[in-house]
């Protein structure tokens, strides 16, 4: 079965490829992204260059990535998909792929080879977390702190457990209003080995342990829900330290010149990338495929790193990243001494359960 299927698929591909050149491509694309500095980096790195090469194409942006899964589900139920390309985090891609809302694709067919000749599959490697996800960047959730509020006589915080050290570092902390990441950090600082964190977190006792550890600082935490909250709280001096995405901290430090420092310890890596919604008509699909091949090639992903401090998802892009940007990348060896990778499988299973406990704990 498999052989014939491959053969048939191959023939079909050849036919599609043969037909593609003659096939009409739609002239408009609706791209969904996060807005802000990140969307701007996409615009500069590949959307504008693409539109220069193909002046007939017009692009509409929709800044709905935060609600992408819910909205795609609703669109699918209504039978009217109005998006052509959607930027989502990897966990959302897995959910969309599970629900059949994102299109499965073949990396060798859809994505360009690396500049150094490596196949797309090898170039992206493990970052192809499911059959639908087209990775763009690696970002991390990490901590920033006010350099001017470090208590006299104390060193600047440099370890994850400094969050829980209210004696040395008094002041408020900003943490995300969800269990993901916080529970892991709490266990790490409660003496659990890094390798065993998820095993422990899978047990009710481990979840209690993590909440108990978070309980030691609960009164000093401001819980955030939007990525812009922590930079704002840091800039206002409302909190001493807080977690957020590293790109947000980069713009607070480098572009707004705030007295904020980065603490890379135990940063949690996560991925962001494209998915193509299932059920596009042929003309739109052809356009999107054409665009994606361009937008995720080695040079374009490296270009994106000029505008925002997120690591390109291709191995082959890394050498092309500008030198002055490298030090701000979460993947830079100086920053990635101690890292965590978002455990998609674990959180897909335990999200509902732990979230219920976490929210009940918050409301107490």
């Amino acid at each position, binding site marked *: *079965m498999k052989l*014939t*299927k491959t053969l048939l698929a191959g023939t079909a591909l050849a036919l599609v490829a043969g037909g593609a050149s003659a096939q009409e491509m739609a002239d408009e694309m609706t791209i969904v992204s996060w807005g802000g500095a990140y969307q701007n980096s996409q615009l500069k790195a590949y959307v504008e260059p693409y539109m220069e090469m193909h002046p007939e194409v017009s692009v509409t942006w929709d800044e709905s990535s*935060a*609600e992408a*899964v*819910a909205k795609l*589900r609703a669109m699918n139920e209504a039978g009217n998909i109005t998006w052509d390309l959607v930027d989502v985090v990897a966990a959302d891609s897995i*959910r969309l*792929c*599970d*629900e*059949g809302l994102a299109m499965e694709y073949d990396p060798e067919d859809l994505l360009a080879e690396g500049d150094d000749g490596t196949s797309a599959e090898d170039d992206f490697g493990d970052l192809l977390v499911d059959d639908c996800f087209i990775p763009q960047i690696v970002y991390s959730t990490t901590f920033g702190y006010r350099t001017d509020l470090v208590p006299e006589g104390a060193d600047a915080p440099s370890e994850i457990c400094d969050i829980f050290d209210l004696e040395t570092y008094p002041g*408020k902390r900003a943490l995300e*209003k969800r269990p993901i990441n916080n529970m892991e950090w709490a266990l790490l600082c409660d003496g659990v080995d890094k390798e065993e964190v998820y095993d422990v977190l899978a047990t009710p006792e481990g979840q*209690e342990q993590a909440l108990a550890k978070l309980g030691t600082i609960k009164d000093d935490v*401001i*819980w955030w*829900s939007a990525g812009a909250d922590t930079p704002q709280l840091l800039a*206002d*001096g*409302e909190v001493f330290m807080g977690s957020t995405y590293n790109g947000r901290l980069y713009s607070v430090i480098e572009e707004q010149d705030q007295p904020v420092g980065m603490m890379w310890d135990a940063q949690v890596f996560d991925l962001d990338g494209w998915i193509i919604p299932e059920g596009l008509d042929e003309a739109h699909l052809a356009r999107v495929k054409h665009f994606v091949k361009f937008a995720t090639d080695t040079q374009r992903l490296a270009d994106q790193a000029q505008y925002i401090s997120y690591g390109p998802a291709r191995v082959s892009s890394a050498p092309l990243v500008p030198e002055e940007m490298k030090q701000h990348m979460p993947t830079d060896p100086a920053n990635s001494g101690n890292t965590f990778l978002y455990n998609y*499988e674990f959180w*897909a*299973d*335990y*999200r*509902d*359960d732990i*979230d*219920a*406990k976490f*929210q*009940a*704990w*918050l*409301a107490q």
Partner: protein
Amino acid sequence: MSDTTQTGPIPDKPATGDETGKHGEMLSADGRSLKSSLNRALRRQKLRALMLIAPLLIFVLVTFIAPIADMLFRSVENDIVTNTLPGTVEALDDWDHSVGEAPGEGVYDALYFDLFLAAEAKEHTKLGTRLNYEQTGLSSLFRSSGRGLDDVGDDYLDALEEVDERWGEGDFVYRLMTGTGPSETGFVADRVRVLEKMTSETLPGDVGFAPSEEIRQLLPATTLAYTDFATFTALVEEDVVAEEDPWEAVYVGLIEDLQTADVASYSGPEAEALQAAKAADIPLVPLKQFFADEDGDWLDPNVWATIQTYSPKYTSGYFLNAVDMQLTPDGISMRPENQQIYLKLFKRTMFMSLVITGSCILLGYPVAWLLANLPASRANLLMILVLLPFWTSLLVRTSAWKVMLQQQGVINDVLVWLGLVDDMNRLVMINNQFGTIVAMTHILLPFMILPLYSVMQGIPPTYLRAAKSLGATNWTAFWRVYFPQSVPGIGAGSILVFILSIGYYITPEIVGGTTGTFISNRIAYHISSSLNWGLAAALGSILLAVVLLLYWAYDRIVGIDNVKLG
């Protein structure tokens, strides 16, 4: 209308005895009773009025009522389990979870074929997500098991191909399965319906395959698997059945069937190959064993109990969840204490909405009184001040409160500067209930002032003067004469403010922290983040019911006629 005005009780010619019927009934000019004539006219009038509002009515029905009804329906809907695993649910009927043992072989056989079809249609992960709301770990159990289903069939196919090369060929299996003699078209139609239910799509068209009755009797499991393969290939992938390689599940079914089938007496197409396959005696891997190897959790009776508990088409599970209870195989029970949250949030939402309504009355009443009693020119200026924030974006107003109330904010800075508050102990006024109440009171204040103002404007100032001239003190005149007349305005304002605040979302989200959030924040979370729409719908239904209940209670106590918006 015209005939009634002419023949009504006030016509220009006086009513004569002729126009009064036998029983003293009034008759109109055309001899009918006045009552029916009037009714007819009124009916026409009502119809015309209805036609005038018809566009709005249809608009509201289509864009508002229907989607809400559809959304609320999700709070009980649960047909995904039976639609995705129809055979398994049926086989599970006889199983009793209280024995504490995994079900027998039959259930695992049914599960394999159900799951294979579901995996091909990519529906099994949806089911996993659904069941994961009830039991942690089922999401990955379904996802990973869906991937491994091919393996066992591949092994069988290799063994079969050693006996006869043709086993892997589509047209060979097609000939074998089609057989001769009368065919089972009804069975194919049944399987098409199963597939339609699973994918929630209508699949028109011809499958182009039907097994013979003889084959179905001889090889029941194979027939089931092959028919599923045929319907899926023909209707979903739109390929020709005979040209495609059969699914691995077909070979799993075949080896199962060959254990017991009496193929020696069969004489249809490819009978020899079938007999040769039987003679080869390919060892059977029991499917229970296969699932146990895939993931040990499949032997866990709790997994099966969850599937069984949630197999009915409608469930009370979401509603129970929404009131901190749960539906377990042993009946309904409270959730563990560390997971109880919704009742608390409902109570908090009620309490805070009441406080906000109360603060709005306290702050709004004097302002409305001023507005109604100042000279027009100054009242207009004041009115603009009331309306100005009303016209400002909600987000801007909420963010402004953030700037005002935060610890490094304006109010704290002023208090520290005045020396009223120590710099190290600045007041915490935001990210808690206080912040939510302040911000929401400010935002909702116009909804209280405007109805109050229009009611107060209708109260003649002479009443107060009359009361005073009769010797009432200022307070008595206000309390006994003025206030009772302004109550309808308070009622209208309170209903508006209370109902608006009970469903408020964005302000509590921004300034509420952990202690100032409302139930609507959890509803939003389940709609957009956890995607548990059933639970969100149940929470929404309860909120709607509570609002209607309060409205009813208000009507009973105060009387809805007493509410005046102007």
